[in-house]
């Protein structure tokens, strides 16, 4: 009973240990130590003191709860410990009971207090939120109401739910006037195409927002132009809920823009579209034409206008021009043609989607008819006539600059032929006119001035679609006429003898370029093809020249092909023949260019040391001329191919412009092809890019030019054989060069 008599040490130590573990570890010593002392003392008093005060044990329970000893396990441990301590008077059960009751009562109080506290905190937080919400709503309402920009809210059925004052102002009324209006009521005939499609996509949730400049009718019937942004608002699940439209009144800006645009594109005197507007329309026409789309130009120049101007004064001249402009416009605009004033007394009629020469000629006749009646100005009856140059071409066959130049020159032919008439464009006449007017004079100095440059046109192996060669095509950047193609100046060059230095220059430049490609790309470099003029071929120094060029540039002779024409060699005893043999002995190969266009003596062909025959582009081109017999055309081409093969020559088709033609030529056995389908003549860098892109290592699966135009490999047995994917016939995506001359047959 010694322990019972002195419950102090053993119990105290156990009690302290119990309180120090578990939750007690988290209680700071300054609290825990006094707590241990105090509770132990109270328990001791409850056990020993007389009279017995169970409430002291109850106080211990409450103290523990106050210090967050809330773990029920603690209650169990504490009761067990208290019970294990012998106490007098059978106080044990009552003592434990009082302790447990005190602990439980305090826990209940604490729990309720904490629940109250957390609920209060939650309420406070919620009130804060509500307050913030109200403040936020007030802020947004103020923002909505007083925004300078028009804001409208609608549902996805198109009902307008709310609009702000600024929006009401834009529509010329108050916000209330928009009530009950539906978005679909706000259609305007000048709506930008696509705006309502965008709207439908938005409300059906397919897009998040759209922006357009959109006109609306105001309540007073006036039109207001707005910059409109509509956004979609979704609910939490992502379904479309509201649409918010923001409108900015840009009417002033729009009107100013319109006026500036009109000023920029219209001739102030006659009100007709001006030169800039005409070129803009023309260039747009050339941006992405349908393959067979045609266009027409009537270049109009008044006859004798200068006389009117000089004798009756500028004012009279201006009035005359205004009347003429009015007549042309009322005669031709209804036909769907564009009439523009280019300046002075020059007008032009543009026929988009022209159906053929007849239509262009009809337009020219309409021009002349419109001006038959004299123009009455004041007391004067002025008889005006005009000359018209008519050009009608396939869009894909020329460029805006070349077309206008050609139409202009055709006009001069009409003038020369006697005025008051129209003249139709003639390529030969055109070439003659070009040389006559501007080429021959300047040409001698052009070479020194560095006005010539060389473009390269890809030549494609039809069996595998690979670019195996390039043809060098000389260009002349003429200061007045723009870029001229060889067909526009080579004739003059031959006549003047300039062809010799020019031909040499071309050879040197091209061979140097070709050697560069060999250095950069090895056996993937294309073989170079250079045209040899008749006079060059007959020159005694030719062989030495070429030997020198090959030596200085380091180009392997097998990488050079010279293209001669049928007329280069006129007979078996021709001196030129020797030179050609010497070249072939050197390792250079020869091709007959433009085959089929000259008077071909097939017997000579057999004796020529050529290895390649280039079928003139006109043969393939004719296959699309509605006036020519297509079937016959193909038979001629097929005949030429087999003739060449019989002679042991390979065949190159020029002027290939469609995938279908390319495929047909391939099936016919044609070996090589060139033409716009495979790439126009381009700058050397573009050729390098193309070689690099055709890298078989990199091109696995994305073979060069194997776009949608690529032909199914089933038709390409060679490709299957080498295990690589070479499209049999491919159409590379070449950027059209900014300006090229009217196409001559040698570059088709």
């Amino acid at each position, binding site marked *: 009973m010694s322990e019972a008599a002195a419950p102090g040490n053993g119990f105290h130590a156990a009690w302290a240990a119990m309180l120090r573990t578990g939750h007690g570890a988290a209680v700071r*010593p300054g609290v825990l130590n006094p707590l241990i002392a105090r509770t132990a003392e109270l328990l001791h008093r409850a056990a020993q003191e007389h009279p017995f005060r169970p409430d002291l044990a109850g106080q211990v329970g409450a103290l523990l709860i106050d210090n967050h000893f809330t*773990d029920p396990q603690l209650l169990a441990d504490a009761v067990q410990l208290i019970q294990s301590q012998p106490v007098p008077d059978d106080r044990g059960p009552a003592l434990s009971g009082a302790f447990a009751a005190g602990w439980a009562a305090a826990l209940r109080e604490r729990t309720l207090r904490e629940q109250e506290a957390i609920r209060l905190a939650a309420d406070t937080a919620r009130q804060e939120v509500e307050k913030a919400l109200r403040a936020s709503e007030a802020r947004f309402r103020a923002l909505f109401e007083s925004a300078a920009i028009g804001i409208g809210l609608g549902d996805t059925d198109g009902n307008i739910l709310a609009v702000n004052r600024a929006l009401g102002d834009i529509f010329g009324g108050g916000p209330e006037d928009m009530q009950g209006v539906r978005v679909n009521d706000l259609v305007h005939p000048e709506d930008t195409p696509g705006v309502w499609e965008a709207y439908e996509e938005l409300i059906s949730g397919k897009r998040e927002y759209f922006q357009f400049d959109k006109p609306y009718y105001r309540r007073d019937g006036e039109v207001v132009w707005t910059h409109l942004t509509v956004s979609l608002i979704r609910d939490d699940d992502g379904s479309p809920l509201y649409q918010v439209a923001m409108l900015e009144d840009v009417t002033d800006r729009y009107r100013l823009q319109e006026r500036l645009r009109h000023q920029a594109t219209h001739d102030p005197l006659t009100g007709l579209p001006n030169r800039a507007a005409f070129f803009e329309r023309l260039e747009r026409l050339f941006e992405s034409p349908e393959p067979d789309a045609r266009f027409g130009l009537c270049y109009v120049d008044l006859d004798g206008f200068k006389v009117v101007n000089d004798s009756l004064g500028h004012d009279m001249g201006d009035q005359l021009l205004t009347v003429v402009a009015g007549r042309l416009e009322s005669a031709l605009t209804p036909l769907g043609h564009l009439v523009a004033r280019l300046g002075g007394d020059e007008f032009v009629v543009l026929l988009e989607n022209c159906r053929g020469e007849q239509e262009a000629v009809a337009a020219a006749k309409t021009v002349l008819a419109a001006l038959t009646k004299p123009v009455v100005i004041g007391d004067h009856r002025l008889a005006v006539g005009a000359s018209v140059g008519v050009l009608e071409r396939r869009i894909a066959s020329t460029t805006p600059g070349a077309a206008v130049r050609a139409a202009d020159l055709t006009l001069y032919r009409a003038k020369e032929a006697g005025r008051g008439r129209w003249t139709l464009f003639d390529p030969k006449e055109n070439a003659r006119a070009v040389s006559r007017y501007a080429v021959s004079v300047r040409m001698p100095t052009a070479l020194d001035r560095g006005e010539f440059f060389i473009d390269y046109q890809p030549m494609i192996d039809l069996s595998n679609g690979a670019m195996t060669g390039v043809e060098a095509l000389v260009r002349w950047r003429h200061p007045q006429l723009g870029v001229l193609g060889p067909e526009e100046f080579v004739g003059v060059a031959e006549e003047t003898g300039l062809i010799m230095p020019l031909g040499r220059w071309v050879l040197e430049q091209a061979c140097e370029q070709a050697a560069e490609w060999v250095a950069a790309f090895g056996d993937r470099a294309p073989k170079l093809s250079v045209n040899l003029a008749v006079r060059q071929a007959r020159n005694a120094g030719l062989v030495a020249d070429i030997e020198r060029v090959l030596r200085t540039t380091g180009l392997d002779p097998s990488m050079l092909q010279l293209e001669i024409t049928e007329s280069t060699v006129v007979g078996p005893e021709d001196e030129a023949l020797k030179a050609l043999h010497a070249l072939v002995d050197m390792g250079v190969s020869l091709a007959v260019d433009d085959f089929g266009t000259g008077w071909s003596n097939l017997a000579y062909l057999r004796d020529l040391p050529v290895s390649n025959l280039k079928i003139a582009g006109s043969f393939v081109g004719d296959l699309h001329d509605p006036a020519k017999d297509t079937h016959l055309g193909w038979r001629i081409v097929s005949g030429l191919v087999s003739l060449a093969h019989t002679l042991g020559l390979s065949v190159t088709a020029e002027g290939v412009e469609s995938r279908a033609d390319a495929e047909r030529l391939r099936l016919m056995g044609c070996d090589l092809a060139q033409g716009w389908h495979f790439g126009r003549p381009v700058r050397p860098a573009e050729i390098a890019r193309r070689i690099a892109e055709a890298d078989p290592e990199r091109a696995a699966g994305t073979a060069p030019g194997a776009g949608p135009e690529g032909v199914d490999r089933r038709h390409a047995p060679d490709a299957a054989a080498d295990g690589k994917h070479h499209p049999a016939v491919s159409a590379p995506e070449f950027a059209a060069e900014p300006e090229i001359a009217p196409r001559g047959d040698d570059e088709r």
Partner: protein
Amino acid sequence: MARPNWVPAGTDLDKPNAARVYDYYLGGSHNFEVDRQMARRAIELWPDLPMIMRANRAFLRRATQYVAAEGISRFLDIGSGIPTFGAVHEVAREYRPDARVVYVDMDPVAVAHSRLILADEDLCWIVDADLRNTDDLLARPEVEDLLAPGEPVAVILNAVMHFVTEDDGPEKILAKLREALPSGSALILSHASLEGRPDQAGAHQDLYRSTPTPLTMRTREQITAMFDGFDLVEPGVVYLPEWRPDDDATVGPHPERMTGMAGVGRLS
């Protein structure tokens, strides 16, 4: 720029909340049924949880005592939650009666509760801010005032960094805090770890997915890396009970069961 005065988020009482769940683990009643449901489910899966939370609370107490004894009297307790008992200012004042504490939490209910209990405290403040928006937190006037005199400040990240996901960039947050601290400052950090009981980690993290604050438990290495730039005080990053125990007996035979890892670092 101060953040726009948007409507505060997180007042959704239909979702369990980490601060109130923690209170329940510690035997408190500052919680709602939705919190208790989640806590009971967690304890069912992992009966050691209340013990772990108590160990975490005990670490906070010892670490606070330690830095206060070292002379630090400024405290920034981020993620203070609902300090049921043994709040930092109470512990610190035993050593530093002048201790000032800025409590920070992002849960509006926890903030409102703290404001109620701290109403009569002169040297305690509560700030409603998000640790992940560190620049905003550091720009709050109460925090700025705490840091301004250049006296050492103890930043407490007690069981809060595991609510920062990798996407939130924990290292960036810590770097920003570190840069804002005067020299001699301290970092008190505890973190739920993947060590000790990797078997429990997956299910436990899954539970927190339903809360606004998903849980990212990390490795000892990752937790140690959070002290980059600080000098770790002995014994380094260890299991909760192992950090400077009151006496060795309280560590217990299996400190790894407490899975959480903790440490204190000083800024030289």
